[in-house]
Structure formats: structure tokens, C-alpha cells
């Protein structure tokens, strides 16, 4: 049976972490699964976890009154869901829903924050990796703000 630590070795987010660091991270994690349509977390709830999707697809959604849920982004296998556990007030800004059956590893944010406080080297390693994820998502969002497919030169 694969341990969390073994699974983490194949996750791009954790590339470059030492065995000791992986062990520390793995100590805060466990495996989980969600059926199609199940909710991982909801907007406004306390955010004390993050997920690494190992199989399946997760939709990040924002509920807009009068429109219903609007899909912001989908997260595929190998990617991470959730960074609100890193910053006060530790609340989710979006809903996360399994588009299809999802297998994931879930990590206890409070546990990891404690380890990062105690070991700043681990804290920096994790923070820089999450910053990379945030930068990629921000860039993706900015490009989509351009509405490149909607814009057209009038003939």
C-alpha cells in the first residue's frame, strides 16, 4: 500500500522537498475520496485544509445570486486545491465540488502551520511552492479577464 509520503513524491507541488520535509508534510495528511457532485468545501466555511488531487477533477465555483454557481476554474489530477488555510481569517472564498469521482490527499492546515512555525526552512519551502501555484492561477485569471475569444475587430 502506498503511503502519503510515497504519493507526495509524484506531486509536482512538492518537487525538490527533502525526504525529511516530505515526511513532515505527510504527517499532516491523509487520503480521502469524493463522489461525483460531492462538496469538498463551501464558501465562508473555516479553511483548515488543502487537497492534492490524485485522480479526478474539482470545480472551484462562486455562487452568484440570481445566476447560481459560476465555475471559476477546474483543478485536475496533480494539482492543489486550497490556499486559504495559509492566511487569516482562514475562510474559503469559493465552493469546491467534485466534477467526477475524486481521489485526493487532504492536509491539516493547522498542523502544517505549526510545523512551519517550528521549522522556518520548511515554512519557506512550502510558502514558495504555494506562491508559485497562486502566481499561475493569477496569471491564468488575468489572461481570461482579457476575454480574448470574445473580442473581435469589426469588419
Amino acid at each position, binding site marked *: 500500500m502506498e503511503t502519503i509520503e510515497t504519493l507526495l513524491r509524484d506531486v509536482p507541488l512538492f518537487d525538490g522537498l527533502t525526504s525529511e520535509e516530505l515526511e513532515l508534510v505527510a504527517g499532516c495528511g491523509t487520503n480521502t475520496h469524493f463522489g461525483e457532485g460531492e462538496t469538498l468545501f463551501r464558501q465562508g466555511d473555516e479553511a483548515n485544509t488543502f487537497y492534492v488531487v490524485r485522480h479526478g477533477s474539482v470545480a472551484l465555483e462562486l455562487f452568484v445570486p440570481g445566476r447560481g454557481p459560476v465555475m*471559476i476554474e477546474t483543478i485536475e489530477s496533480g494539482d492543489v486545491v486550497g490556499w486559504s488555510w495559509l492566511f487569516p481569517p482562514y475562510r474559503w472564498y469559493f465552493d469546491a465540488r467534485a466534477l467526477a469521482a475524486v481521489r485526493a490527499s487532504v492536509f491539516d492546515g493547522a498542523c502544517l502551520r505549526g510545523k512551519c512555525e517550528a521549522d522556518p526552512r520548511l515554512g519557506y519551502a512550502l510558502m514558495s511552492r504555494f506562491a508559485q501555484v497562486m502566481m499561475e492561477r493569477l496569471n491564468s485569471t488575468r*489572461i*481570461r479577464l482579457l476575454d480574448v475569444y470574445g473580442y473581435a*475587430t469589426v469588419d
Partner: protein
Amino acid sequence: MGTPPSTEQLVAVPPAPFRVTSRTRETHDTWTLRLKPLNGGGLLTRPGQFTMLYAFGIGEVPISCSGDSHGPLTHTVRAVGPATTAICSADEGTALGVRGPFGNTWPVDAAVGGDVLIVAGGIGLAPLRPVLYEVLRRRDEYGNVVVLYGSRTPRDLLYVSELEEWRARFDLQVDVTVDAAEGDWRGKVGVAAKLIASAHFDPGHTTAFVCGPEIMMHFTARDLLDRGIPAERIAISMERNMRCGVGHCGHCQLGPTLICRDGPVYRYDELELLLAVREL
């Protein structure tokens, strides 16, 4: 300076009358038209080429060929102005003017023996559909064939029934994403470039065909270079204000090149520096 065009050359390309034989609605603002010459015969086109399509009395616009090169002249047109709106409204039997075909072609033959990666954004799938038809007709001559398609929303996707057929094939990887979605969309949401990471191709033996808004092609090419596809194996199709279609008027000039005459298909290494010049 080049040689001024002769009067003979200029009058050599009047619009030929074609009849609309079918009109299919693709999305809320985009239609696919099939056309047949009024005088009989057909028009030989190749993947990548375009024609100048004329709505009589309203205007003429460059439109990429979007059908099977072995079939009737086919154009997929998005209604964005008076001429394209008139063309999209042309019922079966309506006469339209056609000049061309013009332009060079996608490097379908040069891609033989390697993997084929097609990356389309928005209506950019239309000029790439003839490539896919050709590659599928000669499927044994290519390795992996991958189609990555990004669109604004699910309702803006072109050729939905064909996309479903292509996805059902075992010899073709098709991946689709949209910028935003509501309701019961079960596919991906995110930028088209994100699809590249999970596409199956051998970067050293792949030819990429990219078409979409210029900024989308820029980001896509950057990601393809990062994946290891050499710039000379990335083909992009440009669209810039083409008017005459034959390199006389200069409206589509991009630095030293006239897109209607030398393009619209270019190797990325030919244009990479020019596309970075904001004044062009």
C-alpha cells in the same frame, strides 16, 4: 520596393459568383456556409488558405477555409460587423462573391512521421479543421494526434457534434477548456495553454499548429517552447486586416511581410520578434 502591380494583375481577381448551398448555425453568432460556384465546377483549396468573401453591396472580408479540402468550399463566419453579419444571414440560394483561394498552407506534409499537436482558440478552430480532416485521412502517416481547444464559454464551442466524434476516437486525443462556465458544464475551465501540460506528444518530433487570437498564440507558443517543441516546428496562422488578398494594398503588412501574400501561415521563429514589436 517591389515591382508595381500591372493592370492585368489587378483585374485578374474579380469576385466569382457563388451560391450558398447550406447554412448551419454553430453558435449564437457564428455560422458555417457551404458554397458552390454559379458557373459549375469547384474551387480547389488547401488547409490554411482563405478566400475574400463578398456580400454584394455591403463589403468584402477575408475568411479562412474551414471545410474538407476534398469537399465543397466551406467557411465558418462570426458575425462581428456589417459584411460578416450579411454573410452569416445569407440563406440557401443567396449569391456571394468569392475571390481566391489565397495564401499559403499549413505544413501538413512536413509533419508526416511525427506527432501532430493542434491548438485552437475560439474561432481559430475553423482554419485548423481542414488540417485535422487531412491528418485523419492520412492517419497512418502520423504519430500521436492531439487537439486542444479553448473557448470563451460552452455555448461558444464550434463543431460540437464533430468534437464529440473526435473525442470518441481511439487514435486522437481531444481536450477542451472554456474560460468560464455556468450550469451543467462538466468539462474543464481555465486557459487553453493549461491543456498542454497533459497532452501526449514527443516534443522533439512534433509539429504544432496554432490558431486563435494573437495573444493566445503568444502564450501558447511560449508554453510549447517550454515543453521543448522548437520554434521552427510551431506553425501559427495570422489574421490582420487583409483587404486585397493579393499583396497590393499593404493593409496586412507586418514588418517585411504581407500576410495575405506570404502567409497567413508562418513558422513561429519567423514572426516571434516581429510580434514583440508593438508599433507593427
